[in-house]
């Protein structure tokens, strides 16, 4: 995954630990940009529909938006080409 995606993953981690003052609009941007950088837009759309019951990120807020942040952080981390010894099979 790109440095941009890694940057976004760090942004999500920061948002999850320092929520005060972070707007829902900012969280939506981070989720969308991370999904795009990880090429996981279709997975995100499916997850939103099946798990939250929403067709659009714009329609969710609060705890559901935080769930979406956690979801896309997990997905982005797995799609990241890891340099910490957990490299993907077949890619070394």
């Amino acid at each position: 995954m790109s440095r941009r995606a890694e940057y976004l993953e760090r942004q999500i981690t920061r948002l999850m630990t320092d929520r005060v003052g972070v707007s829902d609009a900012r969280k939506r941007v981070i989720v969308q940009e991370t999904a795009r950088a990880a090429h996981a837009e279709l997975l995100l759309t499916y997850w939103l529909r099946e798990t939250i019951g929403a067709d659009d990120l714009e329609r969710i807020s609060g705890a559901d938006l935080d769930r979406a942040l956690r979801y896309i952080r997990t997905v982005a981390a797995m799609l990241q080409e890891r340099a910490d010894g957990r490299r993907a099979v077949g890619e070394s």
Partner: protein
Amino acid sequence: MGVRIETLTLDDLAGRNSIFQPAIDFHRLGGHAGQQPKRFEALLDRLQIFAPMRDGCPYLHCGANSTTSELFGRDFAAGLVGEPGLSDEAFERTVQMAYHHVAVSGRPVSQRVTAGLTVDGLKHIVSYYQMVFPMTLGSKRVVACLTRFS
């Protein structure tokens, strides 16, 4: 019982259940989600996707109509993202061999799997067909698995 694996061909799977044909077509056209978004989207509901690592194959996706979801429930399936697999270690070790094989070889695997699985505290003999195939998300190669009960 342990886990019994019978090796099949893609044509065997297509002949036993028509739901495998769209996955076979997706694979034969390159298996690239970004290049075939409609085909990929149509498969997502039944698909399970894994990101094989040296130390496991965590779930990237578990469709609401996958066999795992049908067995253990939709909430359980939705909660599998990022998890290393089911709690039955012997079962996971066996089925993950196919995921790793596909990740390394880049070739699909067709199987009939029969295993004893505990669901809600009760032991069940479960038998299903599976097509495990490589696919690409962006620049990342992952492993997809389409299963149907036999």
